[in-house]
């Protein structure tokens, strides 16, 4: 990734970038549109998060070149994702049994 690409290469990837760009715009419009139709509350949330994840994958994968990145970076990000998941899920899990008082 670091060695200079030939011009032809760059031309090729520019088309890819533009494609990702358009996909992101469409995804944004789609998620807004989807939020106005009623799928049942949970499903609206799930759909919005799925779209956001796809968009995030596009940005990270192509703009940030993660799809062709080195193993080391994956190890770093993998462990981060793991601990992040732990933080969210364990915290949620342990808060659950409390009976909240709503004043």
């Amino acid at each position, binding site marked *: 990734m670091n060695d200079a690409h030939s011009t032809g290469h760059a031309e090729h990837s520019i088309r890819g970038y533009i494609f990702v760009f358009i996909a992101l715009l469409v995804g944004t419009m789609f998620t807004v549109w989807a939020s106005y139709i009623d799928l049942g509350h949970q499903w609206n949330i799930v759909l919005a998060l799925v779209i956001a994840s796809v968009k995030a994958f596009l940005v990270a994968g192509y703009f940030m070149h993660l799809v062709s990145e080195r193993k080391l970076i994956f190890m770093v990000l993998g462990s981060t994702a793991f601990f992040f998941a732990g933080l969210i899920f364990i915290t949620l899990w342990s808060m659950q049994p*409390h*009976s*909240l*008082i*709503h*004043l």
Partner: protein
Amino acid sequence: MENVIAFFSKLLGMPVLASKHGIEVDNLIIYVHWLMIALFIGWLAYFVYALFRFRKGKHPRADYDGVKSHASTYVEVAVAVIEGVLLIGFAIPFWYQNAGKFPAESESTVVHVVAQQFAWNVRYPGADGKAGRQDFHLVNAATNPFGLDPNDPDGKDDFATVNDLHVPINKPVIINLTSKDVIHSFKVIAMRITQDAIPGLKIPSHFTPTKIGIYQINCAQLCGNGHASMANGRLVVQTQEDFDKWIAAKSKTGGASQSFE
């Protein structure tokens, strides 16, 4: 065995014990300390011996390979196994029994305790044994800290005390704990019970007192400059008769809208 336990609990300086589950707390503390002491003494003996035997004057040229036996692996595995036994055999089932299973409310003394800087407010359901309806929209810090419904007949004989918690002996006590301001922690050492009182949450906890007497309620969570002197709470464990008398007397004078400050 009893004697051994008693001896160790003396050795470790465990304070007076006055609750049913407390014996399990103490036993587990003692078992863990056996493990700790055994490990510590074992290692220390090895340590001192190794330092002595392999000091430079005695052993001028070190041995490249060092220990070749696998004894250490066995020790490590043994530690892991013993910890596993303590965990799976004692700690986890104890906790499930205790925190997981609550005694039936009908067979227990149920009290509400609201902590505040720097005192314990206690509310009893009164002689009828029924607590009045609570609605937190009605809470008013000065006149109605529990948010009681003044129109509920069950609540008419409810009463409240400050820093004075009476319970009958040998009957489970359920404490519904919350706090008005900051986090406090309800701790009665002889009962081997600690439970944080957290504003916004109502957390039940329970114990069964087994010795008559007066105990101090400690606050075990830093709650401000009066934390050290939040020491006036009393837990009074009485016979059932004395307790009933006390309830009856209080129910007459008490009332749901009693002020606390």
